[in-house]
């Protein structure tokens, strides 16, 4: 029931964001229509970082409590974070082409996201090469902790490296009120979508465990 409410809330906000991004918001003067990507690109990045923070918390909780639930939560959040950050990287690339004439720029935030993408891909590669569930959760937990601790260092080093080159100005006149409102609507839309997906995905993993338990029961009974 609660998930239904969450779903309709995020669907409504997403529809509102369509209107805000496509119709309501004024076109930015220097970059033109393509700047509208920004309203999805930036919230995607923020929510992805939040998702990886949840992975960090879930990993710590798992390693201390050893309750499978925390691993389900952490790995679900890692998966959704990976989906969001992949979309963020692709849209960043699509934005870079008309604006700077290249498909990729080594901009600090974009570069940090790329490194994060690799870390959480590794998170799933490690899981894939382990058969025992408990060990999977343990190792993934360690990657979830170490990977997240790395975020500030990656960002710091990339920023320091890139500031030796001319900085990029994204906005000539700052965010005006309608732009800010649009950004906030998109942020809320993705935020609720994330919470909805996280609960959906975590419950799915609980169900998977239930299926496994039932199967074992049947196997036992049939000798």
């Amino acid at each position, binding site marked *: 029931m609660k998930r239904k409410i969450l779903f309709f809330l995020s669907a409504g906000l997403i529809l509102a964001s369509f209107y805000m991004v*496509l119709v309501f918001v004024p076109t930015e003067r220097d*970059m*033109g*229509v*393509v700047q*509208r*990507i920004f309203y*999805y*690109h930036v919230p*995607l990045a923020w929510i992805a970082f939040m998702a990886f923070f949840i992975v960090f918390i879930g990993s710590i909780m798992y390693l201390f409590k050893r309750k499978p639930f925390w691993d389900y939560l952490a790995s679900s959040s890692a998966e959704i974070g990976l*989906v969001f950050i*992949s*979309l963020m990287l*692709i*849209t960043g690339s*699509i*934005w870079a*082409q*008309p604006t700077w004439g290249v498909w990729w720029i080594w901009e600090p935030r974009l570069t940090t996201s790329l490194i994060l993408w690799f870390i959480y891909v590794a998170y799933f590669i490690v899981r894939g090469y382990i058969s025992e569930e408990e060990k999977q959760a343990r190792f993934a937990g360690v990657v979830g902790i170490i990977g997240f601790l790395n975020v500030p260092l990656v960002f710091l080093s990339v920023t320091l490296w890139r500031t030796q080159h001319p900085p990029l100005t994204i906005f000539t006149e700052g965010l005006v009120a309608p732009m800010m409102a649009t950004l906030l609507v998109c942020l809320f839309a993705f935020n609720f*979508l994330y919470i909805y*997906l996280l609960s*959906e*995905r975590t*419950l*799915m993993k609980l*169900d*998977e465990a*239930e*299926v496994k338990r*039932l*199967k074992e*029961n*049947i196997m036992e*009974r*049939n000798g």
Partner: protein
Amino acid sequence: MENAGYMLAAFIVIWSGLLAYIFILWRTQAKLHRDIKLLKESLEDNS
């Protein structure tokens, strides 16, 4: 309006990506529920 195509491309990528993800989730979820129901029934039948 000269770069509206890029905007549209990004828009399509985001929403088709998310829709595909949600769709896969729903399908697996439905299958799991079916499995749980079947397994529970066969457990009850046996006892």
